[in-house]
């Protein structure tokens, strides 16, 4: 790839992640509908399966989930620099917005209109996550074994607070064993 095209590419990655960072209310999981829309459907930069994998790994590697996901996707699109630039793009709006609020509006979260607006946004983020989960469902759960793992994980996760790492590790071991006994072809 020639250099000019590469730079253009990185600039586009920065812009796309910047835009996602600017509208991503509610943290890492709320980023999912944005990634699905902007990166899978609109640009074809990654696949639904890859995103689910990145979320699995992003919860097991240290750091903020949204940042880990940004690095993974950026890296898939344009290598190491893509990962770095994508992450920088995603965090730039945060730095700008929070710095402004910290400097000028330290009572931001207590302003009545902000609280009211956020009471609506919270419902929307919730619906967006449900919608994204339904859209990704058939890319993640493909047979009865998958369904069993899904149900076991969600029921356990609702009642016991243990690190996501253990669920991912457990599921991975099941997958390895299922392959060895010839369950998965």
């Amino acid at each position, binding site marked *: 790839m020639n250099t000019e095209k590469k730079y253009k590419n990185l600039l586009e990655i920065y812009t796309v992640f910047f835009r996602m960072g600017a509208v991503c209310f509610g943290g890492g999981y709320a980023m999912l509908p944005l990634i699905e829309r902007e990166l899978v459907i609109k640009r074809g930069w990654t696949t639904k399966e890859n995103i689910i994998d990145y979320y699995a790994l*992003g919860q097991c590697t*240290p750091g*903020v989930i949204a940042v880990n996901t940004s690095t993974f996707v950026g890296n898939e699109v344009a290598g190491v620099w893509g990962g770095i630039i994508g992450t920088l793009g995603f965090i730039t709006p945060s730095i700008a917005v929070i710095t402004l609020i910290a400097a000028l509006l330290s009572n931001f979260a207590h302003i009545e209109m902000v609280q009211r607006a956020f009471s*609506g946004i919270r419902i929307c983020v919730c619906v967006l996550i449900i919608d994204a989960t339904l859209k990704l469902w058939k890319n993640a759960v493909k047979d009865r074994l998958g369904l069993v793992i899904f149900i076991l994980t969600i029921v356990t996760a609702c009642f016991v607070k243990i690190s996501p790492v253990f669920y991912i590790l457990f*599921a991975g071991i099941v997958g390895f064993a299922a392959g060895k006994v010839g369950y998965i072809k």
Partner: protein
Amino acid sequence: MTLFFLFLEFFQTGLFAVGGGLATLPFLYKMAEDHPDWLDASQIMDMLAVSESTPGAIGVNMSTYVGYETAGVLGAVIGTFGLVLPSVVIVLAVAKVLNAVKENKNVQNVFFCIRPASMALIASAGLTVMKNAFLATENGFSVKWLSVLFGVILFVLMRKTKKHPVLYIAIAAVAGCVIGF
């Protein structure tokens, strides 16, 4: 010198806080204890409220906020970079390994079973958000029916019109201002 220590503290947080933004909270409380001149533990809940009601990753917003309170704009930037740096390095390394082994049959089987678990973790996070949005917990449990109704309307609207998520967020913000859920 403060900037250097700020970077170091957040680098540590980024390196050891596994499981997303809220996992950084215990590290911030520790920071308030070790560096009372940087921030006060009582500020942390306020910072969290701001971080949750502004766009971006909650952990990133928190580190920017603490960094700014400690050392101004430069502190905000340095703190956030410190938090993000370990993640970026580790993820790039993991991605490199993953790329090298992804054709391997065993690895594919492992991921075949990891995906449903990953999906379940996302769904359970969705359930937590649902609980906060649709249930009032002040005096025992009660369902906030107005919120549920609005949620259903948003969902149908989303499925029918298929526009960018930000449009629905804007609609919800306006509805929240007018109605107040």
